């Protein structure tokens, strides 16, 4: 029996504990974010949307989730 474990990531500048079995896609879902409206940078590399489903979040990852906001 494996117990659900958590890992620690740095998400948008804040340390956060998340379930260890998250992919990028499931992480976005858990945050109620639409993948088509968010760009993901994982450890300073931009992640292609096609690979969200297969990319596992690992302990110590630095994740940036960005989107468009109002600006001039």
């Amino acid at each position, binding site marked *: 029996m494996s117990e659900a474990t958590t890992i620690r990531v740095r998400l*948008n500048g804040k340390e956060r504990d998340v379930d260890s079995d998250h992919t990028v896609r499931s992480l976005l879902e858990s945050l109620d974010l639409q993948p088509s409206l968010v760009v993901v940078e994982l450890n300073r590399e931009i992640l292609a*949307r096609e690979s969200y489903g297969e990319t596992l979040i690992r302990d110590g990852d630095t994740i940036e989730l*960005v*989107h*468009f906001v109002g600006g001039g």
Partner: protein
Amino acid sequence: MTQIVVQKAGTLDMPLTIGGRSFTSRLIVGTGKYATNEVMVDAIRASGAEMVTVAVRRVDLDRTKEEGILHHLSPDEFFLLANTAGCYNAGDAIRYARLARAAGFNEWIKLEVIGDQATLLPDVHATLEAAKTLTDEGFKVMAYTNDDLITALRLEDAGCVAVMPLASPIGSGLGVVNPYFIREIKRRLEVPVIVDAGVGTASDACITMEQGVDGVLMNTALAAADDPVRMAHAMRHAIVAGRMAYLAGRMPSREIAVPSSPVQGMLD
């Protein structure tokens, strides 16, 4: 003097063409600082602008998911021009530009590298460095810069699809402080010259267009007006008025009066 053939097309002006894409409106507007998203959308529609700027920022995970601008502004209705606002070095600006492109709408970027927090004046060296990298990577770069001709020429050489000198500092509303340099940049560049930042009210926009530039980009002038929607109407007219006046060619100004009515035919 610019030659225009008008009658045939039934229009008084040609479209603004930037990087192979044509726009009917010569006004580009920002989406920042509006009191509400509803006012923003109404004002942008009233302005007639087809290209709108947006910024790239972290999703605020503690706030509503409706915070992203695309929940309010349809990319089908407006052409999105992402900016690198807030970046103070070339590396950051390049990073933001790549993130913006990864959003999947287009490869255009309003490049902006700030050199000083108090004046928000551009760091032209860093801007040029970032412009070279981004054009090499296939970006269509519209570069915000100061009103310096040499920098403008270098940005054009770097492959920018438009060069965007400021009228006056961002958010200042001071209008065009150096019309001579704006005219000189327009005279010397082949790519479109868009005046970006500093326009405060309709007369500023009109005077800017009268210098012969290809367009104007503004944000605060609309967003910070008491009535942004009404100001957007005013700006739409002002841009057209200034453009038409430029194309029409103004009368010579002189410091003597010349009567408009015939001096002959007066009664004894």
